[in-house]
């Protein structure tokens, strides 16, 4: 198996894929990606913390028109994770029909290979799939 890399720096792949917050040491505010300082309190020290991989679908759209090179249609979503932070990602393994998507439904993170570079390195991206509440309780 070739080398793999997270598509963004807040997706950690090992030992298992997880989204990772930058957390302000001073006030606990959570962010994605590189920070200069905290937008809440101005603190400059941060530590990382794993985010939960389950949450609730808060918003979605089905994009039919995008820039050249972006395959359409796709379902874009805003998910509220179970630590009350929000993340932008695609909804995966669903029918691209608004009637098949329910606001407020439980979702779980999953990963997929988004592309491979000229050296064979795979870029791994994340998305969310719908889960039944019962299924989640049993897992």
């Amino acid at each position, binding site marked *: 198996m070739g080398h793999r890399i997270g*598509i963004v720096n807040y997706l950690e792949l090992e030992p298992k894929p997880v989204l990772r917050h930058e957390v302000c040491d001073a006030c606990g505010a959570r962010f*994605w990606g590189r920070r200069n300082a905290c937008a809440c309190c101005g603190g400059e020290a941060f530590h990382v913390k794993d985010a939960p991989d389950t949450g609730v679908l808060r918003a979605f759209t089905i994009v039919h028109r*995008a820039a050249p090179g972006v395959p359409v249609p796709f379902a*874009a979503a805003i998910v509220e994770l179970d630590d009350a932070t929000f993340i932008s990602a695609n909804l995966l393994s669903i029918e691209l029909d608004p009637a098949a998507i329910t606001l407020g439904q439980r979702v779980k993170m999953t990963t997929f290979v988004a*592309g491979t*570079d*000229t050296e064979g390195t795979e870029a791994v991206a994340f998305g969310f799939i719908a889960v039944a509440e019962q299924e989640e309780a049993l897992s």
Partner: protein
Amino acid sequence: MSAETVWIVGIEMTPFGKHVDSDQVDLGTRAAKDALCDADLAMTDIQVLGAGTMFGPINLGQRLQKQLGQTGIPVYNVQNACATGASALRTVYTTIRSGEAEVGLAVGVEKLSTAGMLGTGAPERRDTGVFTPAGRDGAVMATEGLLGTGTMPGIFAQVGMEYLGRHGRNLVEHFYKIAAKNHGHSVLNPLSHHRKPFSIEEIKNATTIAYPNTVLMCSANTDGAAAAVLVSESRLRRLPLATQRRAVKISASVLRTDPWTPEVGVLPDVNTCTRQAAAQAYELAGVGPDDLGLIELHDCFATAELLHYDNLGLCEPGGAGDFLDSGAPYRDGRIPVNVSGGLQSKGHPIGATGIANIYEVATHLRGEAGERQIAGAKVGLTHVLGLGSTCSVHILERAVTG
């Protein structure tokens, strides 16, 4: 000593639409000259110039001076996303409030009729070369379409859907209804880019851009300019009575940005800054939503207008759909919203939009809106929302003199 009240004594906009033979300077000059003519003042009277454009030439203000008169006055070139025009006007407003100038000119311009969809990002790094982390998120590929969307229709679709999720009484059908309302309103507006009414079915069945936004629910990409001449209260009292009678009072001019909230800034927060700007504007003007005779709000997409009914306090929390269903925001309703046709139909030349909204409300307050006049309008509100986010709210009142 309290700051002086600021008045609008001249305000005009070019027709919105395709101006293939005019550049930004042509359009801005035309709007500025018309506003000066409306005020019965000359460029030599102007002591400060605020010039707004988002995608136009740098130093727009100085380029306009080359056509209007190089009088050596201070110029502020303003770029503030969809709040650009309102911010340019507010630059002039605050300069007059500070006492540094008595008379100022604000101009907003944009040419967008040949632009494509905004916010589509740059996917050029997709599947090429060796992955190298870049940018604040260390992305190795363009993330558009892989980690959600950053297109404007997609962002605002989600902003609208988030409201539906929070308040279950509101439905996707309300978005279609809003687009039908605004396209219907524009039929009476000779300055509007589009003037064709559409049924709810036609809107729903039009080409989908980002569900639920169809092409008829998105801002029209438009060319246009708008300009306003502002004066201090003491200067107003030295102007002819005819000018004083047509003057429009700026009872509140507010600019806010989105404060930090725990949502990690993933979905741009267009709500909090609008709520805070509206609350501040109502307090400054000493009026409430029930006093408003008309509103021009930032309907960049049909999915945005609904939640701003709520953000501007026009309805009870969560009751935006009921407010729409009651007929209130229609031109014959209790609080007409976007009687110009709104950004969806009149058009959205970004730098001009914030001043054009003020033009619309001011024209009704002056009783000069012709066929589309809202009878008896005494107080009006304008709202623009720049993604990122910036919100500007102005409350305007008609002159009570003479």
